């Protein structure tokens, strides 16, 4: 298993390098530059800024410099947030996004798997229809509609929860953003679980278990759930990476200082180093989570063996 994981990680390096190169050159191809503003800078001052950030060097040299910095865990300075390095920005934003996204995914797994299983076990009953319509609604209503609605009801009208910000870091501030982030995930996971569970419940080994007279609860928990979760686990890899690296919509609406806003603002401001930093970070997380998913397969499916 360890050798497999090491091999996979080493195999991911070329992927990461391609990702880096693509992001590095694409952001520079985009029209406009980091120092463009309403008032054009004096040529001397702009030249000075470009030199300070090494943007006056040939592209291949800049790329080499960037890779060299990366090897030393240096993502470079941010062009936009000039008092911070990109590493510092990521390290400030990521814990918040992780806490928010982690809670949302935990909530989504708990409710999504439970609701999906119930719907599958009671297929074509009212419970099934209720769960499926709720999840369809969850998928259809975008975050930027759901989040303001939650704020309006729970913060403005009822005054139970804060409308935004981190406050003193208390869980109260996290409730609404976590719910807003979790709702679509609950919807997806419940639909995936339902579909897969229905299929598993129809398989021969479950039929055998039932014929042996095992109670339904035991059949589901001990035999059906694990194989039924395989598609959910496949989904979880990239979904978790996406959720814990922050959602720009949720962060902006709730004023949460996560990583997501850096994605968009970095790109809009042509903050090359910030964009690169976030892309690399996200890329590494995706690779790591995909590996975790594959390792989880081995635990869930006895047919899968890694050596």
């Amino acid at each position, binding site marked *: 298993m360890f050798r497999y994981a090491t091999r996979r990680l080493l195999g991911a390096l070329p992927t990461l390098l391609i990702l880096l190169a693509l992001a590095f050159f694409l952001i520079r191809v985009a029209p406009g530059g980091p120092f463009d503003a309403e008032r054009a800078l004096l040529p001397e001052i702009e030249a000075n800024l470009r030199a300070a950030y090494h943007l006056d060097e040939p592209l291949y040299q800049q790329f080499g410099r960037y890779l060299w910095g990366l090897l030393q865990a240096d993502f470079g300075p941010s062009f936009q947030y000039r008092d911070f390095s990109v590493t510092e920005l990521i390290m400030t934003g990521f814990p*918040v996004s992780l806490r928010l996204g982690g809670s949302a995914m935990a909530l989504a797994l708990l409710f999504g798997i439970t609701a999906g299983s119930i719907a599958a076990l009671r297929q074509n009953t009212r419970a099934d229809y209720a769960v499926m319509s709720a999840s369809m609604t969850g998928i259809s209503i975008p975050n930027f509609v759901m989040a303001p609605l939650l704020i309006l009801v729970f913060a403005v009208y009822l005054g139970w929860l804060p*409308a935004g910000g981190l406050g003193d870091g208390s869980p109260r501030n996290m409730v609404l953003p976590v719910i807003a982030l979790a709702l679509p995930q609950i919807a997806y996971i419940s639909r995936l679980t339902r579909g897969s569970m229905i299929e598993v419940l129809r398989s021969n080994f479950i039929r055998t278990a039932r014929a042996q007279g095992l109670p339904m609860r035991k059949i589901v928990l001990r035999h059906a759930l694990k194989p039924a979760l395989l598609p959910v686990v496949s989904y979880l890899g990239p979904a978790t990476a996406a959720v814990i690296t922050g959602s720009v919509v949720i962060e902006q609406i709730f004023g949460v200082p996560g990583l997501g806003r850096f994605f968009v603002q970095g790109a809009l401001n042509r903050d090359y180093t910030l964009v690169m930093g976030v892309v690399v970070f996200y890329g590494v997380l995706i690779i790591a989570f995909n590996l975790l998913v594959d390792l989880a397969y081995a635990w869930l499916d006895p047919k899968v063996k890694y050596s």
Partner: protein
Amino acid sequence: MNRNHFVATVLVTISLYGCGAETDQAEPIGGASGQELAEEQVLRWGNGAEPGSLDPHRTQGVPGSNIGRDLFEGLTSEAPDGTVIAGAAESWEISDDGRTYRFFLRPEARWSNGDPVTADDFVYSLRRSLDPATLSNYTFILNPILNAEAVAAGELPTTEVGVRALDTHTLEIQLENTTPYFLGLLTHSASYPVHPPSAEAHGNQYARPGNLVSNGAYRLEEWVVQSHVKLVRNENYWDNGRTTIDEVWYYPTEDQTAELSRFRAGELDLSNAIPKRQVDWIRENLPEELVISPYLGTYYFGFNLTRPPFQDSPELRRALALAVDRDIITGQVTNAGEVPAYGWVPPVQNYAGQQMPEAAWTQEERVAEARRLYALAGYSEENPLRTRILYNTQEDHRRIAVAIASMWKQTLGVEVEILNQEWKVFLDTRQQKIETEIYRSGWIGDYNDAYTFAELFASGSGLNHTGYSSPDYDRLLREASAEGDMKRRAELLQQAERVLVEDLPIMPLYFYVTARLVRPWVGGFTPNIMDHHRSQNFHILKH
């Protein structure tokens, strides 16, 4: 230099604020109205975007400047109504030729760590602000200072800037030319002092909590990027005795709808703006909280004069400018109290704005003239003008562009294509002047003087995206820059504005307003045209 050679211009308005005997604030706050102060003096601002930096010489944009005004104090400062008053300097003298300023610093002024604020600190700071190594984007603010431009360009060493300390508390600044608005420039963050030992010790990390030593009414306590900036009272500030607010919180509030929700949920005392599309709802439901006031800005459409159809066609530009019903734009599209603009310079101090002569006409008369000029330019219903409007992607800009396109279509038959681009792409396209025919833009003045508007359309200005170049206009601007007599200077700038509204390289649409929400118990909020506020002038009433 003998003091007698100076015209004593110690502004006495200043002492009113400095000593406080005759001002409104001499009254115990809340006392006259029978209202008491709240126990907790905490002020919470919605601040738009996240500040790029809190280092006054490296900051860019309004959010950083807002916080900077609480943290730092320049040689001059601003009263709540925006009038320039004494700051770290308690008085000053200006030489007869208007080119030498001598500032007398307050001996009692202290940095937040207790060190005295000295003339050497200002010499260090102005040099640092201009030093190319600081990477400031705002060195142009200091251009009036002798050699400042050459130092910023790296052509001269920083020691050549026209600034020197005569003694611990006397600073002398020499200017290139008479600059009547110079005292106002000293309230800009580019001219704030930084604490030399801290700036030297921490370099790029000077503006971090724990590192930042400041000389304003507040000091930096916390900064969590994208979450908040928390300031607390600077006990060492020379006027701390008259400061009421103990803590100031600035929240980044880019999404105006989300900001409105936070305001309604009671989490903000002042919003940064309002969502324009909800202005009617706000007027109806939050009438007491809504404050709308004039703002130093002009919204306009510019013409690309380097290419047809607008090159060499003043009739066509004028026809398009006249065919726009500005009352409809401000009354039905923007709808937040903006003022229709027929001239370029908004109502700044010591200046009477000039307008297009047609401003006094009825819209019907303007449309009739527009049709005549349109035909004169060679266009007709059979041969309509086909043009395009370029704007940076934003809903408010789109609505204005659509309204104007339909007005042109209706009155003249012009075929208009409306194009939007993301901000940086838009800047790039506009700069190239190839695809652009008409572009939307807005200009917010850097200081309260007509020159900050007039300079935009000087030939070769970094802000002149039209390609407009008028020898007359340039000459009037040059003469105004060198003119010491304020009245004559204003006349020259007015003449320049008349040239501009005659040539119409741009089409002014409206003068901006600021619209924000302010809680009824926030005392001391005074709208001003620069929209500059300092938390030290605020207080929270018991509620």
